């Protein structure tokens, strides 16, 4: 029981690892992502272009690699923005309670009431579209859920003995919050990050699909898919390859974040 190997986690980690390798290999791919070639318009997979070429004769492998890189970078920074802000808000609410809690909770509740994609849409329409705007928009969109999660966790922890002891010993509040309590809510925290990351990649693909997001000729996974939509019958590989990579990436992260695996990993600590 103790030495049970967590296959889910291993599978997830290896898929994500492969995906990152795939993105990094893009730097070795000599085709430029926006180099057009009249002779290769909509040509199928070949040895020099394993994923085929799109309607401008651009190498789809390179475009998928850079596209996925962009999606991952956007989601990564969005998650950082979301988690840092969300955790701070949640920690303050949960730990202090009272008026601070009421005000901040009211604000996050209002944000929570708006679907996150819609929130991102409003943000983009106010500040224009582009990589930075989309990152910020997605970051803001995931703040409410993070704040809610962290608030309840901190509220629970605050009543426990070790926090009360720390308070008696006059440990500074910021230390209690982020050095004493945070490691104890790590399980929820890490799971939230992975789920948020997954949601971000999907939301970014969604935003790009409806034409908000990175500007051409740069493509993310979402724009690759939406551009290829019109060629579904004549050149299905244009949709298949990026879609397959997107699904694989999401699946890998999904396995990593699967609650049970982390429960196992962390329950080990208590058993020992």
């Amino acid at each position, binding site marked *: 029981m103790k030495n049970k190997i967590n296959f889910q986690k291993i599978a997830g980690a290896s898929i994500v690892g492969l995906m990152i390798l795939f993105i990094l290999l893009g730097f070795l791919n000599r085709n430029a992502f*926006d*180099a*057009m070639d*009249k002779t290769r*318009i909509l040509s199928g997979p070949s040895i020099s272009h394993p994923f085929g070429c799109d*309607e*401008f*004769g651009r190498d789809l492998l390179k475009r998928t690699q850079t596209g996925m890189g962009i999606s991952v970078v956007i989601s990564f920074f969005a998650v950082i923005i979301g988690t840092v802000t969300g955790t701070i808000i949640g920690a303050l609410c949960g730990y202090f309670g009272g008026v601070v809690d009421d005000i901040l909770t009211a604000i996050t509740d209002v944000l929570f009431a708006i679907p996150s994609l819609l929130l991102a849409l409003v943000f983009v329409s106010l500040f224009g*579209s582009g990589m930075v705007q989309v990152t910020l928009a997605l970051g803001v969109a995931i703040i409410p859920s993070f704040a809610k999660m962290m608030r309840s966790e901190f509220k629970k922890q605050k009543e426990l003995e070790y926090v009360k002891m720390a308070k008696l010993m006059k440990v500074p509040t910021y230390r209690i919050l982020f050095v004493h309590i945070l490691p104890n809510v790590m399980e929820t925290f890490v799971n939230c990050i992975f789920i948020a990351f997954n949601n971000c990649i999907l939301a970014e693909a969604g935003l790009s699909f409806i*034409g908000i997001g990175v*500007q*051409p*000729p740069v493509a993310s996974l979402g724009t690759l898919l939406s551009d290829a*939509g*019109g*060629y579904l*019958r*004549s050149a299905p590989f244009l949709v298949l390859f990026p879609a397959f990579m997107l699904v694989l990436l999401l699946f890998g992260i999904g396995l990593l974040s699967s609650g049970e695996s982390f429960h196992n990993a962390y329950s080990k600590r208590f058993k020992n």
Partner: protein
Amino acid sequence: MKRIKSIVLFCLLTLTTVLCACTDGKNKASDSITIGIAQDIDDSLDPHKMVAAGTKEIFFNVFEGLVKPDSDGNIVPAVAESVEVSEDKLTYTFKLRKGIKFHDGSAVTIEDVKYSVDKFAGRNGEEPRTSAFLNISEVNVLTDDTIEIKLNNPDSDFLSYLASVEAAIIPKSNANLDTVAIGTGPYKYVSRIPLQNVVFEKFDDYWGEKADIKNVTFKICTNADTIAMELEGGTIDMCVHLTNGQRLQLDKERFDVYEGTMNLVQALYLNHEYEPFQDENVRKAMNYVTDSKEVMDYVSNGAGEAIGTSVYPNFGKYFDETLVDTYATDVEKAKECMAKSAYPDGFDMTITVPKNYDQHVDTALVLKNELELIGINVTIETVDWDTWLSDVYMGRKYQSTVIGVDAANLSANALLARFRSDADNNFTNYNNSKYDEVFDKANAASTDEEATKYFKECAKILNEDAANVYIQDLPDFVALNKNYEGYVFYPLYVMDIAKIKAVK
């Protein structure tokens, strides 16, 4: 067991759905046709109030003016049998066609004609349809079948304004103009279901060559992604304005794809307020480095018509084909021009494109790659249509944009008036006193030949001055099921159904 049952049930359900779809498209009677249109007809049915281009496009079959355009761009008599223009070009005398009838069966009288002219020219207190009609000084009924229209100033384009749905002849007796459409065209309006369809029926008493197909249904297909599927599935027989991508999805065995042009001037329009574009050498360099043939190859498999100025080929007498090759692609020459300019090391520019027009976005992508050859660093910014209209077209807050500019009627003014320095639709802020001078001469000219000469000179100035980077008249693809034939393109934005014939 339960699982097997549900699988069987699922298969049966799928099969029924699939088989249901098979009923359409086969054994269709040849006396009807279904045409897909991209937007609902939610305009008024009063031809003098119609605004949307898509509405006027199909109501071209229902309404006719005193004269109408033909597919070659000539203006031919319609409700009027003949027209006489006086020596001083101020009096137009129209003779009413004998025996012509409205769709409700009543005969067209000279009173109906006077009523219609007064209505669309704004002589009964309403707004005139175009400001050109303010030029009308008198409308007099001479006899039972002749009417004369007098102008204040000669206007060589006057008949072009009359040859439009906006100047249709309608019966005086029709009290419900907004909902009942009665005209004199080859088809009569039957009914409309909002967001579903519009139905036309052949008019048996039409004065000219009668239509071939009896029933015409316009099906509203707002989803561009499904149009190819609807054509393939047989729910529609015809669709106009297909994109290259949609065209490629069609089965060549079953569909004829007619290729024409959209009748617009697609160009990289430059805002002359933006500093680098004030330098003539920069504009020339940009013209030399761009290759419209390459744009066509990428965007539409080589279809499209190259242009060299703000006039497209279907404009007949105003189009000067020698201008097309003024800036034949020559990268070396472009580099020389750049070296002579104030920006020998290049500069940054932004192309603002409306993202709902794939062809313009794709064109911008190709242009970006070409312009980078001479050190111009291009950023593409896609915006939605409303933003484009308010910021670029109305607000003129942009550096450059790729768009197609169309003509409301067959007059040269429709294309060239916008480059006069004080024109309110001069969205490129083009300012050239020589152009203004020649343009005014063209409008003041007393004969058509003289006006044409000056208009052609205007077009030449735009070309020589490299006012914008002119690219092409975009191709227009029309898919027609092989059960029918005979689609013809017009030099204007209209769809002529009367010429389509059923072959099976």
